[in-house]
């Protein structure tokens, strides 16, 4: 396979100004991923700071309610800052320090990656600026304040659709301008090489732990893995360790108000191959190659494109992709809260919604692991608004 590619997907489609930095990053990363000191520092912080390993929890009442396969939740919501995003942000912040950068920047949609990056920067002592679309700042106001508390500057992006894709554009522009002093902590398995594989590696601890934990809890591997897919990092993090095993995997995209309405973020159901923000992958675009607006109730899935390893895994049949609508996700959000006392992130609720459809069709001896990628505190206000409740 061509370097930096997953089959025909991936690559490095960026302005020349960034090419040297990406080559340098690729070299530094391939050095530090084998560096004992670096790995030890990361492992220590994963344990003592992030709180890893996160639990693998058998959701008994949720399982009983659905009446089919046994459902385990990989509790990334219990990781420090409340989502899987910290696994990558901390890894890259450590790397930034090693390669001598004094400042980090990040894009954020739901605010979870912004919070995780601000946290990593505070921990390590780096200056931190986070780009966030105006729309997302409104629906994730709590996280905006969290980032500021953590000492980061939140920069509003008021151009284009004012969501995640525009925040990535602005981050890339900032990086192009300040590349000598700044590292861009991209928040998902997206963008130019080496980001898709580097972020996947930092997230793959999710699957490594889950495999060990399910063998201990159930004495065997699961039958299904389910994860929501925005850029695709929590999904790759869970799936990667299991790719060689005989297990079905399902990625769940944001179906928004339904594919027919055009208001969704289901890149596979509604998109085609394109080149966007640094890589060749699937993209929601019109016939002229312009990028379409997206919609999802969850800011973290509200994105026109998807990490390049996903279409590769889809083409070769290894992972199956589907979507859940806003309404299905909202129903699952409430269901898990009531049945298990766990309020999930709206992103993760898309994965739960798929389990709600799938589990009842499976026999009780089947096992599903769902990646509960984050907790829902950040979404409480937004869900209340949708329900017309004033807080």
């Amino acid at each position: 396979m061509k370097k930096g590619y997953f089959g025909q997907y991936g690559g490095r489609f960026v302005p020349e100004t960034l090419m040297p930095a990406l080559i340098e990053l690729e070299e530094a990363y391939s050095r530090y991923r084998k560096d004992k000191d670096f790995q030890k520092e990361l492992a220590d912080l994963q344990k003592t700071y992030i709180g890893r390993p996160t639990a693998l929890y058998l959701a008994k009442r949720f399982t009983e309610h659905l009446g089919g396969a046994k459902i385990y939740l990989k509790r990334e919501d219990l990781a420090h800052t409340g989502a899987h995003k910290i696994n990558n942000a901390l890894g890259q912040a450590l790397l930034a320090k090693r390669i001598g950068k004094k400042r980090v920047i990040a894009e954020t949609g739901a605010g979870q990656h912004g919070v995780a990056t601000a946290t990593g920067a505070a921990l390590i002592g780096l200056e931190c600026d986070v780009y966030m679309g105006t729309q997302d700042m409104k629906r994730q106001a709590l996280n905006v304040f969290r980032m500021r508390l953590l000492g980061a500057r939140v920069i509003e992006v008021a151009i284009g659709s004012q969501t995640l894709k525009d925040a990535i554009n602005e981050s890339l522009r900032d990086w192009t301008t300040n590349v000598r002093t700044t590292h861009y902590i991209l928040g998902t398995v997206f963008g130019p090489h080496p980001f898709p594989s580097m972020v996947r590696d930092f997230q793959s601890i999710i699957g490594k732990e889950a495999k060990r934990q399910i063998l201990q809890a159930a004495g065997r591997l699961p039958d299904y893995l389910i994860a929501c897919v925005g850029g695709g990092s929590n999904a790759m993090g869970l799936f990667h360790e299991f790719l060689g095993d005989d297990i079905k995997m399902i990625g769940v995209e944001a179906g928004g108000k339904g594919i027919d309405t055009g208001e969704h973020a289901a890149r596979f159901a509604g998109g085609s191959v394109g080149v966007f923000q640094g890589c060749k992958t699937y993209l929601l675009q019109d016939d002229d190659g312009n990028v379409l607006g997206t919609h999802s109730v969850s800011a973290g899935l509200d994105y026109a494109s998807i990490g390049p390893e996903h279409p590769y895994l889809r083409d070769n049949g290894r992972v199956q992709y589907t979507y859940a609508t806003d309404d299905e996700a909202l129903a699952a959000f409430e269901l898990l809260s009531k049945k298990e006392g766990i309020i999930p992130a709206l992103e993760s609720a898309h994965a739960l919604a798929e389990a709600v459809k799938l589990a009842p069709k499976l026999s009780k001896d089947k096992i599903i692991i769902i990646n509960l990628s984050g907790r829902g505190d950040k979404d409480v206000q937004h869900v209340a608004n949708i329900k017309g409740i004033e807080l």
Partner: protein
Amino acid sequence: MNRIEKLFKGLKARNKKAFIPYIMAGDPSLEKTKEIVLMFEECGADIVELGVPFTDPLADGPTIQRAAERALKNGVTLKKAIAFVKDLRQKTKIPLVLMTYYNPIFKYGEGRFLADAKDAGVDGVIIPDLPPDEAGEFTKLAKNTAMAAIFLLAPTSTADRIKKVAGASRGFIYYVSITGITGAQLLLDGSIETSINDIRRITDKPVAVGFGVSTPDEAKAVAGISDGVIIGSAIVKKAQEGLNGEFRNFLLKLREAIK
């Protein structure tokens, strides 16, 4: 030889530098763009760089971002820009390069795009998010259609990259004068000259400089150390204030400065 290569050869023989103004197609309308391009020619431009709008112009600063937004609102697409050039060719023979992002071209189909653009009278293409590393097929196809695939170098480019980009680029090499996006502040501190000298040691292809050149004084300084000057954001901004005598004067002053 491509028309752009011919042009630079002629300029070199006369010890002259190229004036390359930029405008976004369809901002504020294609009729106005036509007027502007013809005005460029009247005012002595050597090559016209025509922007084609894309929804996510990640190498561009606010001025050209907004211009792209306006052009998109007017329904301008790559297909329409090509048709526009075809129409324009009834009025002018001035060398013309398109600047757009890779996805519209990828979606159009590289081969079909090059054939249609060539047929319409386009002479070159600049794609800021397509480095030569990813342009193997495009470069080959462009060569076959005698279209100049113009690649970019930047202040951060290493010797390895200069070799790669200089080898792939045809027509001219586009040197990005700032570490940043279009329309940012130019810094005239001698570093541009150092970089251009580094490039000249590796290639004898013409080097034109753009990104951040906004005044006649800056244009003059840059012309003194390169083969051509590209002016984008400053012209887009001026054009927005009106296609009046002041706009024409600005173009004439730039032309005067680039010798």
